[in-house]
């Protein structure tokens, strides 16, 4: 992997720097589950080394949109995607695109921690191994666990089962597992919703650290979390026809302090949802 890591003080500078090109964008993205349209015409871009939060009432299609970003929707037989998802200007839904390769570059962390019933070490090492990683596996495991802020807690019990950890630790193990294959983008679907407040804060701090190297997209139903930790916010809502659509998208401070759409304001101030 190209050494992209910046020192902390440089990161702040990077954030204040003008936003670069979008690393991923959705173009007229629509998703159907069978005959039911779950998401309609979403246009949205994710910027490098930034955190984008997807918020909105439940059922508005946040998870669906997120799953489109690394073709995890392929696993749902009735799901049908139309439109484009561009990753570095490749349409990942184009012909002859290998979804396995897409997922290798665009990782995912799930709502419920789902470590493998293997040792902590193997949890981190497995993904790298199948992706043909050559190099010191011990180093990679240590580096990934350190980046996931878990190394100090588990360095003496790497042989223990990943399932022996607490919920918050398990989720950080899943993050370590995701970053061990050095993706560009990490998609997180409500990664803290099953965790206690302390673990939630740890995950949020961790996300800030990770933006040095990764672009993060996070689905959250927690408004404070979106406001605290994201650079961009996309607010989704459900239309008359029950299809989800993007209401408003912009820099987080603008969406939260000066929303353009009254629906966004209602949601953010707690009048809806």
């Amino acid at each position: 992997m190209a050494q992209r890591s910046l020192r902390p003080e440089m990161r702040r500078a990077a954030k204040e720097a003008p936003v670069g090109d979008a690393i991923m964008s959705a173009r007229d993205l629509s998703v159907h589950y069978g005959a039911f349209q779950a998401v309609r015409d979403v246009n949205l871009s994710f910027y490098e080394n930034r955190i984008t939060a997807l918020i909105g009432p439940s059922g508005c299609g946040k998870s669906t949109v997120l799953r489109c970003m690394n073709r995890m929707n392929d696993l749902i037989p009735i799901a049908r995607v139309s439109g484009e998802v561009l990753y570095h200007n490749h349409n990942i839904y184009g012909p002859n695109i290998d979804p396995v390769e897409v997922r290798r570059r665009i990782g995912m962390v799930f709502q419920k921690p789902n470590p493998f019933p293997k040792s902590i070490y193997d949890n981190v090492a497995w993904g790298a191994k199948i992706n043909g990683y050559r190099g010191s596996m011990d180093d990679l495991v240590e580096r990934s666990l350190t980046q996931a802020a878990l190394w100090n807690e588990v360095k003496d019990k790497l042989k223990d089962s990943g399932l022996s950890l607490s919920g918050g630790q398990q989720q950080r193990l899943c993050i370590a597992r995701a970053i061990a294959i050095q993706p560009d983008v990490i998609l997180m679907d409500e990664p803290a919703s099953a965790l206690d407040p302390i673990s939630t804060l740890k995950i949020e701090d961790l996300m800030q650290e990770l933006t040095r190297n990764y672009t993060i997209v996070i689905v959250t139903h927690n408004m404070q979390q979106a406001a605290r930790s994201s650079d961009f916010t996309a607010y989704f809502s459900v239309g008359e026809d029950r299809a989800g659509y993007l209401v408003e998208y912009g820099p987080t401070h603008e969406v939260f302090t000066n929303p353009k759409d009254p629906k966004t304001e209602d949601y953010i101030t707690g009048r809806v949802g």
Partner: protein
Amino acid sequence: MSSLPTPKNREAIFTDRLSARKRRGMIFRNVCLAMTIFGVLSLGALLYDTIGSAFTWAAVEEREVRGRVQPNVVQTWSLWEGIYNRDELQRLTAENYPEAEFRFFSWVNINFLTNFPSRFPELSGFRSPLIGSLMVIGITALLSFPIGTGAAIFLEEYGTKGWISRIIETNIANLAGVPSIIYGLLGLTIFVRGAGGLTGGQTVLAGAFTMTLLSLPIIIVAARESIRAVPPSQRQAALALGATRWETTYSHVLPSALPGILTGTILAMSRAIGETAPLITIGALTYVAFDPSGARDIFTVMPIQIFNWVTLPQATFHNLASAGIVVLLSILLTMNGIAIVIRRKTERTW
């Protein structure tokens, strides 16, 4: 207004219906207890009978057979009879067989395990059926475990959930309940007559192929169930790391499902090891006085030999049959024990 009946007396809220409820609970409990006792008693009776006849008290004379002195059992009494009535039996022996010695005689012994069947009960052994059964079951396990697992993986991990898969699914479940004799007829047609060139006719191999057909539905059903029990979140985790479907199946689904698949296989094998009808149908012998030279040799199996002994008139052959049952049951219990250990060792909470 509440529609639930409430006692008039407030003090009685928690005590009013207690005795009626206890009485009703007691009735259900006792009915279930009676059913349990019935089951335990029938099992007990079976064991009592078999053990009493495999381990006996006997009047034993010495006799010369082929130049060697051999014990000749002239009369036997069951283990239990000898325990309660020893003096009486000793007196009877002394009266009726002055030459004979009264002693404990176990029909399960080294000779029984190492000798071939013979027309002298005391010399007769279980060797060829034991080896025949182990060969048939061994080959059956080697064939049916990978085939069954492969089929289950296809149906669960690759198969689409359309109407074709539903038809296959229903058919496999139904096949598990087809009477075993029908598999015997199938085996006779396909493996003895059809593929006789490959199997060599009425051989261990033809028997093992037939038993594989019989075991497969059971194994496939068990394997599918344990594959389905692996949470989808595990597959998602692996696929999201850029794993292929096969890498996901091989590294995560199979290891988690393996204990269940092995348990199912062992249970299918313990059904197969007791099967008689299909092997008689394909032409397994009832009397084999040699070791099968390989998988393409003729053979017999334990239940056939046991059946053969039971049909003979002499009482001492019935003791041999019981001894055979004891050996067969011991093997079955061992197999089921292994299945339980596997399950215990790998119990997982996700």
